[in-house]
């Protein structure tokens, strides 16, 4: 642990530094490239106005502060949220393949969002993000309900219920998209939502997700020893004084809130919740006191970078961020898996 302890602080420091650099670079990159010093000056001025006297054009300021910075910060928050929720879910069900998708949460958010985007105009008044949030939470309640028997929930039943509900909801989503395929019915909007997007981010979209992220991650971090015990095994957790049912519900609600918020503001972005916790565990082991803070920063770095790729690779068009996470994440994940097996055998 001593070794992991030192390694954690080193890695965490590095990841925070990389995150700050990624944010600045991501803000500089775009249709109108901006010099890095200008970006740094503008951001510093925003943080502490007396520090620097403005020497930039109004247009540059607008690009940085009004367009790019909110988007990059949203990527930071969403990346951290997805990675942290993946970590918690994996510990809860002792399964390294668990992520928000396995539990049907993302599918639930998608159904609700697509319904609002494609169904009768009467529903268009409902904000998509609100619908997605409600959809995610409703699905989690459903999945938990189905997984329950005689007041007991086992990890396996939780996964099975999540996968089944997820498939069902995906089918409904597909039906809604097909149904809306005549022009003007919203199929395009629905598809682009499903592929995940951070475009159109505004400062006012950042407040709630940031608070939810900080609150839930803090709660999970306080409960890191409990997550460790759960990851070790159910009977062990009980013998260490954990009230299994109560703790599971609390953690499930916490992660639902986090996932629901992330999905609501960004659409269904896969792979972050699965990939990042794995990478982090390879670096600092399984202790959640180290894994949780590091997944947050690494997840944020990952999504910020992926979003830059998504909006530059086929510029002036944008590749949906969900597609890029899958396209970058899947090969990387497979490579890592093979590396790890090689190392163990």
């Amino acid at each position: 642990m001593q070794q992991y302890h030192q390694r954690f602080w080193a890695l965490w420091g590095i990841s925070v530094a990389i995150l700050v650099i990624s944010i600045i670079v991501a803000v500089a990159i775009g249709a109108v490239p901006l010099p890095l010093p200008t970006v740094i000056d503008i951001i510093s001025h925003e943080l502490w106005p007396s520090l620097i006297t403005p020497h930039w054009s109004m247009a540059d300021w607008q690009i940085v502060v009004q367009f790019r910075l909110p988007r990059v910060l949203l990527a930071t928050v969403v990346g951290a949220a997805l990675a942290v929720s993946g970590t918690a879910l994996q510990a809860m069900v002792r399964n390294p393949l668990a992520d928000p998708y396995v539990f049907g949460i993302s599918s639930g958010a998608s159904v609700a969002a697509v319904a609002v985007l494609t169904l009768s105009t009467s529903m268009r008044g409902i904000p998509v993000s609100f619908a997605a949030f409600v959809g995610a939470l409703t699905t989690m309640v459903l999945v938990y309900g189905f997984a329950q028997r005689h007041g007991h929930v086992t990890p396996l039943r939780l996964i099975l219920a999540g996968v089944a509900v997820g498939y069902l909801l995906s089918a409904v989503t597909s039906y809604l998209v097909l149904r809306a395929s005549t022009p003007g019915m919203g199929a395009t909007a629905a598809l682009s939502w499903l592929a995940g997007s951070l475009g159109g981010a505004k400062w006012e979209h950042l407040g709630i997700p940031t608070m939810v992220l900080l609150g839930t991650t803090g709660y999970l971090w306080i409960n890191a020893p409990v997550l460790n015990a759960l990851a070790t095994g159910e009977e062990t957790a009980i013998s260490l004084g954990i009230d299994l049912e109560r703790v599971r519900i609390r953690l499930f609600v916490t992660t639902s809130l986090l996932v629901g918020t992330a999905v609501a503001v960004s659409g269904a972005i896969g792979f972050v919740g699965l990939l990042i916790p794995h990478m982090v565990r390879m670096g600092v082991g399984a202790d959640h006191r180290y894994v949780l803070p590091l997944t947050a920063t690494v997840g944020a770095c990952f999504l910020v970078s992926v979003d830059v790729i998504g909006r530059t690779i086929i510029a002036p068009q944008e590749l949906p961020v969900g597609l890029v996470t899958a396209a970058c994440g899947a090969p990387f994940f497979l490579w890592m898996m093979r590396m790890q097996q090689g190392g163990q055998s």
Partner: protein
Amino acid sequence: MKLNVQHVTVDIHGKRILTDISLVATPGQCVGIIGPNGSGKSTLLRSIYRALPPTTGDIVLDEQQVWQMSAHQSALYTAVVIQETPSDMAFTVQEVVTLGRLPHLGRFGQSTSHDHHIIGDAMDRVDVRHLSQRLYHTLSGGEKQRVLVARALAQHPQLLILDEPTNHLDIQHQLELLTLIRTLGITTLTTLHDLNLAAQYCDTLYLVYQGTIVAAGPPSAVLSVTNIRQYFQVDVDIHPHPHTGRPQLFFSPHSEHIS
């Protein structure tokens, strides 16, 4: 700490697993539970460490009912050594032993230097400190078992429960582990498949057969030719151990099964 199990009956999904079990472990005693496979030994342990509520009956630690305590309170008294199916999470030995401090941690999960001292001490007692940075799932069976005992010790229990602690261990490690447990001075309740080990290391044995206790007492009384023949379906010759004088069992397959 005194464990008193009184008339415990356990049903799982409407099926009766244990019927009217009564058992006592006095402070410092090592009590063994023996019986053929599927007789309900592990179920009995689970109801004592609060993993499975009894349908009727009482489980009392000193004066307190276990099932009226919270899970947390119970964990302050009782520690458990069980081999669970390993997860893919790569915990180090030190992290596994640290889990034993969980019931004693502060409100925000913070551990103190006092905790670190106890963790180091627990690792010393079972001689695993040199493994502290190793990954738990890469250890041998004997090392794993010792690490789990260290975790249980870090919990500072007054009752130690073990489920088949000698499984997968070679003979040297079997004897070392049981000797270690005897030297702890903690009230201990363990299931054991190996009747000779049970005879050597336990003060009292309870023989469980089809969910009921059919014999109880010192090893010399419980491990009789008739009991072994009737409940384990094997013939046995019993002689005193040349050094300890405890019963030593020499098995032969049941004659009825051979012919």
